[in-house]
């Protein structure tokens, strides 16, 4: 692949420590599009090694609005089936620029390791010192060792090491949106974390036309119903959950978007500092970033105050737990108070409801900001699949119908200089189930 790609697939065998490379053939992209589509093909190719496959979507890291998504594909310890988990925030972008389009990690290491992926090099490093550390400490240790705070760390926390059903793959300090327990899958390979940094460059087949189309699309997208809204409180209100928005509001500091994603879907809650404070807070850990409305809704549903929910979210982040799964499991177990929940976090068990397919829902059911289509499960499923193939933010894809299939296919031609038609797209969507 010459355009919007690094033309490298890394195959890492943890058992032998060998790292091999293959080119990324055009044909694979034309058939599977990218992201979850190619990930699944690589998973199947290497399935004897129980692989975890990381891949960027076709447009990840590009100027297409919402281009934040990378995808992790593996067998879920929770469902026993192959799933695709989202890499949002800056992790998908960093993967795209890391010098590899796809990374297949197979086998298991004999001793704790971490994977350092940078500029087309994949190094397996000793992680004996990191094993047992919580998510935050491990992230900081790797960044300090490598000398850069912009390194994106996909990690497993102590919950994963202890085999928790709810051990999620984390991004730096925060949950990734993984609902499938892939943190545990990582730890089962004796792999503590994957650190990504890339200073790469993605060529474009038709740069000017591609950029012009992206700007035109952005112009259309900016007129959407979400315009002027930011963060999870607005998102909750936009789903008709005003009570949740009001519950959250007093703790809201600022909102952060994932890479090149117009809607800022991540909200930072200040728990140890005044949320109205703009200067850098003195507290080293003033709060928690939340990007998962389901988690908030679940914790509110337990009867917790927003501050208590924030504490639980913070603890989940340290331990490497999926907070939505934790809330659901706590509800199933009849937990009603924050203290009880916090005390039981280390041993909390699934199951996690709502995981019927290979993709976790990006937003609770309902019409987003009054957009009728987004309440339609079939439309949602199709949009989610497109997001995971093209590398576009799954939540934003539900808000922005302007990112139409026709426009995306037109951009494929301009971006990579290869044609992909609607039939191939249908097949790719069907391929990821």
């Amino acid at each position, binding site marked *: 692949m010459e355009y919007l790609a690094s033309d490298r697939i890394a195959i890492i065998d943890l058992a032998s420590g060998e790292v091999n490379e293959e080119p990324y053939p055009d044909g694979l992209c034309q058939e599977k599009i990218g992201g979850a589509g190619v990930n699944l093909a690589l998973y199947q190719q290497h399935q004897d090694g129980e692989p975890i496959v990381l891949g960027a979507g076709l447009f990840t890291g590009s100027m297409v609005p919402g281009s934040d998504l990378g995808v992790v594909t593996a067998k879920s310890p929770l469902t026993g089936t192959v799933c695709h988990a989202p890499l949002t925030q800056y992790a998908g972008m960093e993967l795209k620029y890391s010098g590899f389009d796809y990374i297949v990690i197979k086998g298991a290491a004999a001793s704790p390791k971490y994977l350092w992926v940078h500029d087309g*090099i994949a190094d397996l490093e000793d992680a004996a010192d990191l094993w047992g550390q919580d998510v935050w400490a491990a992230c900081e240790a790797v960044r300090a060792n*490598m*000398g850069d705070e*912009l390194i994106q760390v996909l990690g497993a926390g102590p919950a994963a090491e202890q085999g928790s059903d709810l051990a999620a793959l984390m991004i730096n300090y925060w949950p990734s949106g993984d609902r499938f327990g892939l943190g545990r899958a990582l730890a089962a390979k004796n792999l503590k974390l994957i650190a990504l940094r890339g*200073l790469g460059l993605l060529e474009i087949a038709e740069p000017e036309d591609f950029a012009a189309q992206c700007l035109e699309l952005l112009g259309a997208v900016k007129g959407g119903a979400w315009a002027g809204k930011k963060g999870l409180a607005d998102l909750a209100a936009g789903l008709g959950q005003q009570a949740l928005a009001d519950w959250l509001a007093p703790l809201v500091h600022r909102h952060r978007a994932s890479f090149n994603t117009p809607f800022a879907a991540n909200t930072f809650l200040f728990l140890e500092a005044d949320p109205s404070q703009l200067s850098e807070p003195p507290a080293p850990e003033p709060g928690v970033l939340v990007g998962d409305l389901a988690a908030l809704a679940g914790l509110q549903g337990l009867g917790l105050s927003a501050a208590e929910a924030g504490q639980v979210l913070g603890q989940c982040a340290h331990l490497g737990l999926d907070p939505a799964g934790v809330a659901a499991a706590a509800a199933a177990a009849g937990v009603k108070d924050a203290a009880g929940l916090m005390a039981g976090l280390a041993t909390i068990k699934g199951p996690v409801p709502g995981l019927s397919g290979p993709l976790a829902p990006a937003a609770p059911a309902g019409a987003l900001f009054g957009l009728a289509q987004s309440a339609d499960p079939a439309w949602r499923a199709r949009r989610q699949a497109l997001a995971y193939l093209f590398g576009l933010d799954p939540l934003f894809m539900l808000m922005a119908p302007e990112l139409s299939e026709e426009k995306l296919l037109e951009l494929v031609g301009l971006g990579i200089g290869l044609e992909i038609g609607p039939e191939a797209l249908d097949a790719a969507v069907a391929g990821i189930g």
Partner: protein
Amino acid sequence: MQARQAYGEQAQEQAAPRPAARGPRLGVYCGAGSSHSWLWLADTCEALGLGDLRFLEAGEVASGGLSGLDALAVSGGDTFAMAGALGPAGAAALRRFIAGGGLYLGFCAGAYLLLRSSKEPLNLFNLVEATIANLSRRLPQPLIMPEKFATPYGCDYVFHPVREALILRGQGGPLGEGEFSAPLYGGPAMQPAGPGVEVLATYQDFSQATRFLAPRELAAQTLLGRAAVLRGRLGAGVMYLFGPHCEHPRFAQANRRLAAILAEHTPSQALAPDGRGLAELGPAQARRLLSEVRRQVSNSRIVALALEDHPARWRMGGKVYEPAKLRVFLEALWSRTGALERARRLLVPAGAAELPALLAGVTESIRALRRELEEGQETTERAAGLFKDLRRAAALYLNMYFATAAAGALRPGRARRLH
């Protein structure tokens, strides 16, 4: 979409034409005292189609390294440190080289080096009958960049009232008679002081990109109308001294004039054998070497990027270095990684085997530097060692690259851009 006018370049300037197919075999000084600007020569010469470059330490200049070269270029840095490193043996070798028909191109510090001086160790050189015109006994208060404002020179100071792009006017000869721009980073204004020294260009005006370290009027008095480029002769050889950095790769007008000088001095006879005892690595060895280079350069430049806006500064000899300069060295390697990885074969000069270990040390050192800066520790010694290692690594790497290029082993066509 490219926008390269930030340095005062003319928008309509065409890419520099390439000189005669072969061009001279050019040595580039990268030894003690040199800063990072010698790397610009690698970029510019490559863009001009000159593939036969070799990079020389001070000891190599003094011990026969000039043999077989058609030209030697000495770019910016600390002139006193350069002169000290070259020493009497280096000065004598240089004198022999030029008198024997060699071409000398001196930019900034490389120009100061040959100007007339009574100061030790500069007085070892004194090859061009001209003096420094931007000397001052008293200095005004600097407006900005106090560390770049002046350099002690005996009882006087070499005074640098401006930086960045200026307008020069050619006075005939290979530089022509038109105006062109080039950046000044502490280089001299010069005054011919003997017969046979020709002024080829003068400082004509300031540009929109010129930054004033002293009031504009004083800067004008110091520079405008004075010699920016001189030509002197010694025996059969010629010396060009440039106050501004006409070798800076972002200044196509100046580069074109440099190309004209090089074309004029391209020998007509066939190229002599390389003479350095180059070894050819087998494919597996080459892959291992280049993979390790990629690994370590990537590791280092990730840290260097994290430091790019760090306010630290280190004074080393007469020069001030900033963290942002770390990347300059690393990018010189990184930008050529793709081309070398695609090469048909890899030719390595002596010493290339130490490159992986040297670069691994650079990675370790730059990471330690960052930690020490975060902790507020004194880092000058660390930084000095790091820049020394980077200079050595860049020289080894570029010698390997240009030896491979000169052997025709780079594949045609553009390598994948890595950024």
